């Protein structure tokens, strides 16, 4: 009798224990599947966000690059800043060559904003925008030609070389950020002729007759991509 009771007692609850064990196994398997699916989903979202922040950075870089070589764009301002534009000589010297004294390095803080109807476009933000010019050399040649009376012409030729123009900025989109740096070499060669009139102790009526456009090295986007990868490792150069 007692043996029978023991036997029955051993059986009682066995099915529930079995179900509990199976339940734990199934739940673990289910949780693993859900976790794996969630990871897959978050990876795909992150991949999309990374691509988007990359294209926002690349778009800004392309717009800035076009702006540099525009007729009155940023490159024009660089030359203006260095002091070439409007600095026609008036000393009546002929056939002079001058190495103009310019800073070896110029660092400029900048801002980039995207606006939609004058309000910030909040899908993307740019900050830490900086332009660094280094290795600047400017040589000016001048020849003077007397015309008649107080009138004379000044012919200027200039040869500007900037070894490196580096533009760096950080792009932010959906919590992801991308640091990007672009490097250009920059050169401008050209000439202009100014018609001048000498009065008692000053020159007036200077008219620029020819100011050649700037030339910039075309960007090689394969190089851009290489820089991009380097920058992604937070090694902005």
């Amino acid at each position, binding site marked *: 009798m007692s043996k029978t009771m023991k036997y029955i007692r051993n059986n009682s609850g066995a099915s529930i224990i079995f179900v509990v064990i199976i339940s734990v196994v199934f739940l673990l398997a289910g949780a693993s599947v859900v976790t794996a699916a969630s990871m*897959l989903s978050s990876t795909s979202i992150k991949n999309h966000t990374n691509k988007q922040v990359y294209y926002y950075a690349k*778009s800004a870089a392309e717009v800035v690059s076009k702006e540099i070589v525009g007729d009155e764009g*940023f490159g024009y301002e660089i030359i203006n800043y260095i002091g070439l534009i409007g600095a026609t000589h008036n000393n009546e010297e002929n056939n002079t060559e001058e190495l103009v004294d310019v800073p070896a390095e110029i660092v400029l803080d900048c801002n980039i904003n995207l606006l939609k109807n004058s309000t910030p476009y909040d899908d993307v933000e740019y900050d830490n925008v900086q332009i660094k010019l280094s290795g600047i050399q400017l040589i000016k040649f001048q020849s003077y030609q007397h015309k008649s009376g107080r009138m004379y012409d000044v012919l200027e030729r200039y040869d500007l070389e900037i070894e490196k123009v580096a533009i760096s900025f950080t792009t932010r989109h959906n919590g992801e950020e991308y640091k990007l740096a672009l490097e250009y070499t920059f050169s401008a060669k050209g000439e202009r002729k100014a018609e001048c009139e000498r009065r008692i102790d000053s020159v007036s009526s200077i008219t620029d007759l020819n100011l050649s456009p700037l030339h910039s090295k075309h960007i090689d986007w394969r190089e851009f991509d290489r820089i991009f990868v380097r920058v992604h490792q937070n090694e902005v150069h």
Partner: protein
Amino acid sequence: MKYIRNSKGETLVEVIVSLVLFAVLLASVTVMVQTSLNIAERAHERNEETSQSVADIETGQSLTDVDNLTFTFSIHGEIDKEYEIPVVVKQSGGLKVYATE
């Protein structure tokens, strides 16, 4: 004898309870797996869409104009200058790029 009969009843109840529990569990796990499959499928579709968008952007094909913005580039300090450049936002799939007009 009474005790033995009662025990038999308990075992039957336990089996029924177990089957119910198992059925509930199976339903739950089925829902979990089904949901996971849906999530994984959406992730796969998103990856495919991203890849297609990248290909479209790189080749400049199948891009739709979606917005007109102003790109402002300002230089501070001694060169105090601001440039306002109109740009067009183009989209392929879920990815956007912009460029000058």
